[in-house]
């Protein structure tokens, strides 16, 4: 549930205290917290973390969310090492990016920062003058940012107050979700006459939305490619059929001088094989160039050579099947055609 202050008088800190107080007292609520970025929404902050104060070396990309001491409990994410935030470590982010010095990271992020496994208690830097100490490591979970390394999540002990905007995150007891949503939505909306309150949704909704986008993309891309493949086969079919009908007399002569039916089929199939082969050669160059361009501009993973190889095999097989039908028709041309004048 998102709450956004709409007037200068809107006091974020007291609104947050009020909301949390209400939600944590609401029957059916297991835990409640406040955050900047909802997980699985692809809406959130990302940042880079480095080993050294002068920010040399490669920064590890991660999404960043702020949670209070109830955050991990609300998300139901377990610590694998270290400890959770204490209540007195939670700061307000009013007055710029004054960050607390304690952070919690996911296993993936810890491993990316310290491949040797000494992440717990280590110091890393987000800004030059801003050392952060890793006090806890959680098992992997997806942060708000889903592109890139989705399991890289860094949790800072803060209440988001700077922008007058925050998300309420609630975990309901089993079977109580709908009632909790109804009550919370009604109360929070009426509690803040000078704030906009967004609709409540579940993490499952966010996940469905995110996976639906990916599935739709995969489906339409596959459909369009299948169509291209079909049109390509039609092209090869048409070309072979045209060649067969324009060489009918020539085929008759070959048959008359002793060529067997399978020689005729082989003749047309090898012609289509030459066309497919040159197409595949040119296509491989094009595919690699397109793959390079896609990974440069859209961050797609580099094109696997196995993919290219599989593509060539598929295309050639389907292409030969398409050329096979007109080639069979060519083989049935009778030798007597040779004696006719037209």
């Amino acid at each position, binding site marked *: 549930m998102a709450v956004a202050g709409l007037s200068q008088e809107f006091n974020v800190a007291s609104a947050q205290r009020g909301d949390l107080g209400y939600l944590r007292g609401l029957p059916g609520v297991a835990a409640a917290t406040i955050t900047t970025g909802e*997980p*699985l929404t692809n809406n959130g902050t990302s940042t880079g973390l480095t080993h050294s104060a002068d920010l040399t070396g490669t920064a590890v990309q991660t999404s960043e969310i702020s949670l209070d001491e109830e955050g991990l409990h609300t*998300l*139901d*994410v377990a610590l694998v090492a270290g400890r959770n935030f204490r209540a007195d470590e939670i700061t307000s982010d009013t007055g710029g990016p004054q960050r607390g010095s304690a952070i919690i990271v996911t296993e993936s992020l810890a491993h990316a920062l310290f491949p040797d496994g000494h992440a717990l208690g280590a110091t890393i830097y987000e800004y030059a003058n801003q050392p952060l100490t890793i006090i806890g490591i959680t098992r*992997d*979970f*997806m942060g708000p940012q889903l592109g890139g390394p*989705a*399991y890289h999540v860094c949790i800072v002990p803060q209440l988001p107050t700077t922008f007058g905007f925050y998300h309420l995150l609630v975990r309901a007891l089993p*079977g*109580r*979700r*709908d009632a909790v949503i109804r009550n919370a939505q009604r109360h929070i909306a009426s509690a803040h006459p000078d704030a906009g309150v967004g609709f409540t949704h*579940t*993490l*499952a909704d966010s*996940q469905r939305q995110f*996976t639906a986008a*990916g*599935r739709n*993309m*995969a489906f339409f*891309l*596959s459909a369009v*490619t299948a169509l*291209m*493949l079909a*049109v*390509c086969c039609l*092209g*090869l079919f048409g*070309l072979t059929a*045209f060649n067969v009908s324009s060489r009918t007399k020539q085929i008759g002569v070959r048959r008359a001088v002793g060529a067997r039916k399978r020689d005729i089929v082989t003749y047309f199939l090898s012609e289509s094989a030459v*066309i*497919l082969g*040159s*197409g*595949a050669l*040119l*296509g*491989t*160059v*094009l*595919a690699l*160039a*397109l*793959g390079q361009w*896609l990974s440069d501009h859209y961050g*797609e*993973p580099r*094109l*696997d050579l196995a*993919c*290219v190889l*599989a*593509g060539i095999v*598929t*295309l050639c097989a389907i*292409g030969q099947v398409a050329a096979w039908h007109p080639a069979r028709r060519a083989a049935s041309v009778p030798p007597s055609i040779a004696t006719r004048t037209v």
Partner: protein
Amino acid sequence: MGALLVVAQIAITLAVLCNTVSIVAHAIAQIDRPAGFDTRDTS
């Protein structure tokens, strides 16, 4: 002439086919990753 056009068609189709397979495989792999917390609807 006709053969050249078909060669070009095959080349473009292959280029698109390979990249589609690669992109779709990657997208499916991303979708299938677990979220890491309980997202089941318990109503």
